């Protein structure tokens, strides 16, 4: 079994680290939210790839089929996606109001304005 046999996990790790890096390194508040969404999306893929069963088909009851994929992770992740959407919407709404209050969305400029008070 080679390292690339579990390629789905490699994709998850790559996406997760990319998202995390953007959150940490970017000073732009909108880009941080983008990174955060990417970070969450990687976990969605982790869950969805859990549900795959080798040889399993769509989990709808039909004659002559005994092996189904596991639908539970999909249902769970539907909820997590809704949570992710709300987080993104709330984050962006905050950014809009920060922009109105500070006239910038760059973190260091906001710090400068706060310290000069």
């Amino acid at each position, binding site marked *: 079994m080679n390292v690339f046999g579990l390629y789905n996990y490699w994709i998850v790790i790559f996406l997760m680290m990319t998202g*995390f890096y953007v*959150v940490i390194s970017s000073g732009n*508040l909108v880009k*941080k939210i983008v990174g*955060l969404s990417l*970070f*969450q999306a990687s*976990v969605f893929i*982790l*869950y969805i790839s*859990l549900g795959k069963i080798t040889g399993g088909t769509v989990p709808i009851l039909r004659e002559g089929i005994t092996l189904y994929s596991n639908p539970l*992770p999909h249902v*769970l992740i539907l*909820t*997590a996606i809704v*949570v992710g959407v*709300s*987080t993104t919407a*709330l*984050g962006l709404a*905050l*950014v809009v*109001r*920060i922009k109105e*209050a*500070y006239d910038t969305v760059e973190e260091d400029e*906001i710090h400068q304005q*706060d310290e000069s008070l």
Partner: protein
Amino acid sequence: MILSQLPALQVTLPLIAAPLCLLVRSGRAAWGIALFASAASFAVAVLLLSRVLDQGTLSYEFGGWAAPWGIEYRVDIVNVFVLFVVTAITTVVLFFANDSVRKEVDASRQSLFYTVWLLCLTGLVGLVMTGDAFNLFVFLEISSLSSYVLIAFGKDRRALTASYQYLVMGTIGATFVLIGVGLLYMMTGTLNMADLADRLPAVMATRTVRAALAFLVVGISLKLALFPLHLWLPNAYAFAPSAVTAFLAATATKVAFYVLLRFLFTVFGVTFAFEAMPLGIILAVLGAAAILSTSAVAIFQDDIKRMLAYSSVAQIGYMVLGLSMASVAGLTASILHLFNHALMKGGLFLALGCMAYRLGSVRLGALAGAGYRMPWTMGAFLVGGLSLIGIPLTAGFLSKWYLVQAALGQGWWPVLVVVIVGSLLAVVYVWRVVEMAYLRRPNDSDASAVREAPLSLLLPTWFLIGANLYFGIHTRLSVGIAGKAAAVLMGQSQ
């Protein structure tokens, strides 16, 4: 019949009241609905507490789906105690909120404010009740998202950046929890906590389960504001509206602490978390570091709300220190401190809310001479501060006493030093406020109009402060339940 439905009512009452608040236009009506829902859920929590004391653990199956498949709510002595604290605090703080919020939040947004408040309460209560690991994540996000909104209601524009920072860190924490739950599901195929506890020992030695433990602990610690993951907390508490600060400080971190207890002791078990993995020493060091470093930082704060926020991080350190001992005595101290800290920080932040109401600011300089102008408010702050330091006859003394006893019982004498130094640092930062309020002359020009805060604010404040004194003397209820809860947590896992 209705008694068997109590666990469902506990969560659905605030959930149903939230959209009702959204429908009404006036802030006062929304406040009435919110207060009614909180009081009702407090009544439910009291009924649940008495039932659990009588009959032991209650289980409730949602939709009639049996436990490992359906979502199960499990109420035992541990979470019913936390429920009691959360619902009591929200009810008292809502009494306070009416006048305080009218001053700090625009009239047009007050009904939204109470809607979000109730959603936050729903999230916190659900988080405590649920026996399902994924359901826990959902409630965690409900409570987190609504607390970001509540913080952003603050008047200062820095409330927005504080809320944003909390959103980023909170989402990372919650996503870590989600990853941890996913890894556990991967190994066991179940999400029910009791079922997880049964199935985990078979796969305990795998790297996946260890990774799950790490993700869960780090994720929950972010929500818990465990040092050094506490960076979001001081700003969030400092710039939120007064009532929100009191509510969140007294409930949100406590609930996160409960979640940590639940995962470490019920799901993973003591043997895995503290013997196979070196969690005990890690948490002990972080707890001690939290007490010493954030108490020291608190001394240098000019904004008193911020000072108390740093002190909150230190108090979380005491709780985690008790947890890290992984013994019945240590856990008793932790759970007792959870209860006592909710009372004292609730009371202290409400006293600060009274000051903000009259003085318009809670910076140290604004308080000069306030001890004579607002004697009852400052008196409340003083008693709360004594409890925070841990003077005998206050609630704060008891939990520190139990903590030190537990530590000495295990030969952890450095804990004694940490607790003493932490308490001395607390003396210093409480003294700074007391000195300013009682020993400085007021600058007469601007503060001559300052009067005592209105009764509607003072009563809830003194209710919580009085509870500090009451539970400092009458220990049967709090210590008794904390001891039983600790025994349940340790007993289940052995």
